[in-house]
Each structure stands twice: as C-alpha cells, then as structure tokens.
C-alpha cells in the first residue's frame, strides 16, 4: 500500500514529536489513517467552506494525538509550514492538545477526554434543526471510552436519531498503564455501541479502502465505526509498545523511523 502523501504525513508526525520532544506519537500514528481518509477523501471541508453551516465537522476528541491532525492539515494545505515547525515550542503556534483559537480548522478544543461525542451531538442536532447538510465525525480513543460522558452522548445521539453523526473509535488497544482491555475490559465494545442504538461497523482502521467504505456508509441511525488500529503504526519499534505513549524518538531513532516509513509507504 504505497501512498506518498500518507508517507509524508507520517514522517512529519515523527519529525514534529522528535523536535518538540513530546509524547503521544503512538496514538498519532494509529489515528492518522482515519484523519487522512476523512480530510483527503471523504469530508467536505476546505478553505472556502470552513464557515459554511453545511460543511462536514471533524472533532478529534482524543486531543493528545493532535500531531496527526496538524500533519494531515499541513499536507492538505490548511496549516502553514511555519505552524508545523513551531509545534509545542516556547512562543509556538500549535500546542500538544488542540486549542481552537489557533486555527479555523480546529472545530473544538480538546485534550480532556470524553468531551468530543457530546460536542459532536450538539453540532449534529444544530444541523438537523436548521436543515443543514453535512455530517459530524467524532474520533475517540478506546481508552477514552472509559469516560462515562462518552456513553451519555451515545444515548442522546440514538434517542434523537442523529443519522448525521458518526462515532469513530481508534481501537489501538493501549492506554495509560497498559492494554486497554486489562485496565477496563471492552473486548465487546462493538456490541456495547451497537446496543446503544448505533449502526456499528468493525473495520481495519489502518486500511484506507475499508476506512473509505465505512466513513461513507449511510444509515437511518447514527453510525459507529470500530477502527481496529495498531498503536505506533508504521514504525516497527513503536508498534504495540506502551512506552511510545510517552517517549519521543531520539536522533538515531528518528533516522530509523524515517527510513522505515520511506520504504513502507
């Protein structure tokens, strides 16, 4: 699966976290294929329609994976190179967790988990009230689903038949202290979400074809996508390693990572 854009997006992420010496590269690498598919292939969002009430809305609720969003927006031409170079430095332009004041393409601020689904239902309900088109995509982590507020929002979305609401779980199977299902068992998360009234799809969340099919799936119910992903995807020594929730690559690791990405994508 060669894709030069996605290769450059991944390389930018690794370079950003290396330069800024910040955490969460693993989460950025698991979610980036979802964001890439949305911004490059599925969602109706561009420079000209960003204030239109009919645009699609994308909310990255797992705000700690912001480097993935920044890189995707940069390669889409919606964030400047200067912003990327000033990521998370003193006096910089982009923080580790998303601050909506920094760009019109950040629909919400995020960083505290479990807020995105409710914010998304607000956007989706407003679209319904005003008969505006467009869908609302909310991306959460699997660990994030420990937050009760996530489930409050899901109950609301199905009760109000928000068929313009798409709830995506970046199911990368790791959280703060280890394997997600060992901290709080959610092995049947697809059944749980389905039982809350969602049309639920389980896909390979790092596969662009499966992502496109799922993200364009229309239903008379709200849609949930359990995107089975690999934490740290694309860099062999980061894949499925908890430590890359916290570490940033040193100079040598950066070179290895960039070389691997060059070869794989």
């Amino acid at each position, binding site marked *: 699966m060669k894709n030069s854009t996605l290769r450059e997006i991944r390389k930018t992420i690794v370079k950003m976290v290396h330069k800024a010496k910040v955490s969460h590269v693993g989460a950025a690498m698991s979610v980036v294929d979802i964001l890439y598919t949305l911004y490059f292939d599925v969602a109706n969002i561009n420079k000209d329609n960003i204030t239109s009430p009919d645009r699609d809305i994308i909310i990255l609720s797992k705000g700690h994976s912001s480097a993935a969003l920044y890189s995707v927006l940069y390669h889409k031409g919606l964030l400047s190179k200067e912003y990327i170079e000033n990521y998370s430095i003193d006096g910089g332009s982009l923080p580790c967790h998303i601050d909506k004041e920094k760009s019109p393409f950040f629909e919400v601020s995020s960083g505290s988990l479990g*807020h995105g689904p409710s914010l998304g239902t607000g956007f989706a309900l*407003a679209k319904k009230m005003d008969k505006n088109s467009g869908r609302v995509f909310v991306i959460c982590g699997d660990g994030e689903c420990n937050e009760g507020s996530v489930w*409050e929002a899901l109950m609301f979305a199905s009760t109000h038949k928000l068929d313009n609401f798409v709830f995506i779980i970046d199911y990368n199977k790791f959280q703060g202290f280890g394997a997600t299902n060992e901290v709080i068992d959610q092995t049947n998360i697809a059944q749980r979400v389905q039982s809350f009234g969602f049309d639920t799809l389980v896909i390979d969340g790092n596969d662009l074809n499966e992502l496109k099919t799922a993200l364009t799936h229309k239903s008379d119910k709200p849609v949930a996508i359990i995107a089975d992903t690999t934490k740290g995807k694309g860099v062999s020594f980061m894949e499925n390693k908890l430590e890359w929730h916290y570490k940033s690559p040193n100079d040598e690791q950066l070179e290895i990572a960039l070389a691997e990405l060059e070869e794989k994508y």
Partner: protein
Amino acid sequence: MRKTFINTLIDLARKDKDIVLITPDMGFSVLEPFFEEFPERSINCGIAEQNAISLAAGLALAGKKPYVYTIIPFLVERAFEQVRLDVAYMNTNVKLIGIGAGFTYGTAGATHHAIEDISLMRTLPNMTVCCPGDNNEAEQIVRQSIENKGPMYIRIGRHNRGIFDNNKIEIGKASIIQEGKDIAVISTSNMLPDAAGYCKKLEAEGRNPYLISMHTVKPIDKTVIEKLVNDGVEIHTLEEHSIIGGLGSAVAEVIAESGKGVKFKRIGIPDTFSHYIGSQKYIKEQFGLYFGEEY
C-alpha cells in the same frame, strides 16, 4: 423567580429563533410553557449533566443560543470541567441557569444546597456571573443575557418576599437601592430581602446605611466599591453562599487593592456544610442569615 425566568425566555424566544432550552430532566411544572410553545427547541437530554453542557457548547459553536437549566449543584459542580472547557475555555455562547441558590432547597439537604457556586464560577475566565435578588432584577438580567454574548451563569433563587429593587439595572453595574452615609450593605442573590431587613436593624441603631444590590458578582462593580472606600464608608456584604470566594471575597479584593482601608464584614455561610433539617428560612436562621421585617 423560576417562572420569571421562563416567561422572559419565552418572550425572547418568540423574537430569536436560535434560542434553545436544554434541561437534564429538571424543571417539572416550570418549563412546560416553553416546551409547549417551542417543542423543536426544547431538549430534555436525560439525567446527564456532562452531556447537557457539552451538547449546549456544540450547539453554540454551530450558531445556536442555548440556555441550560437545572439545579445548581448538578449544573455547576457535577459538570464543572465541561463548563470550564466547553463553555469558558472555548468561550461559547452558552447561558447556564442555576436553580436553587443557597438554601432554596433547604429540606432536601446538602446534596441540593448551592453554597460554593459563585466562588467556582467566578474563577473561570470569560464567565459573567449574575445573581439576581428579586424578580425585577431576574427579568432584566435574563432579558439582557441575550445581548451579552459569551458564557454566563445566572443564579436563580426563590423567595416570596416581594420586590426590593425597582431600579432599571444593567449587568456589571451595582444597583444602589438606597443612598446612605456611614455604612453600606452590599447584597447578592437571595439575601436582598434580608439586606433590606439588615438596613432597618442598622437604622434602629442610629446608622445611615446604603442598600446596594450586587446582582453581578463578575465583573464586580469596582467603581461603586472604590467610591465607598474613598468616602470612608464601612462595608458589610451579605450572601447566601460560603464565606469563601463569593461576594464577600470579591468585595474584599477590591478594598484590599484600593490602598485604603475601611471597616469591613462578610456575612455568609461559614466554612461548613449544613446538617440542619428544615426550610430555607430555618437554615438561614441557624447561620444568622435571616433578617426579616421584625427588625
């Protein structure tokens, strides 16, 4: 005061189609007239306060003007982080309508008492904090809220003791109900009738008190306080709220930074929960906060 709120909101909603009312399943026998007139703009999101706040923020980001209505401890404290981030930090146009100021729900117990809310809401950047003292103030504040773009908390209380402030008021400006000379009684929220009683008590002692309603605690009206300090007027603050962080603290900060000193006294709830069983009036009496017509 709850009826005043809903009647005023109905009037506003007739002119502004973007007004939306959200309740986490609270407001039985109060909100129904709004539900009946604007069913498509009435949202009972269930007993889920976190969702109520963030949902409102999402609606506001999409251009709606949501009012979230429920009992204060569940609105302010249960969902505080949602208020902090999705309302205050993102500076969304969400109005928070807190019901049951102070010991309004006295018999319900401390779970339902609202005694820390002014302090919490006052500390949030972008948040305007209004605490009307009677129905006249409540109606004017709710009416002005629609023009006051951005986060706002309105603390709604309950008393059947009449109208004490007949002034035309303005958010952010103290209302001087009675001019005085040597002492100023500054009140907020439910304490307005008691402040009037407290003034009568002072008058019986030969004092000449100002009666001032500080219906907006944030931004606090520094000008009025600084004038009192400059004139050497003793100041007493009255609030049905913890002595920590509310009106008394806000006024004390202004006095302390004025560079001058005046005699000053905070009258409020000491640093304790109420374990008293009884009505609002009874609990206020236990804390020395009830000043009726008998004085």
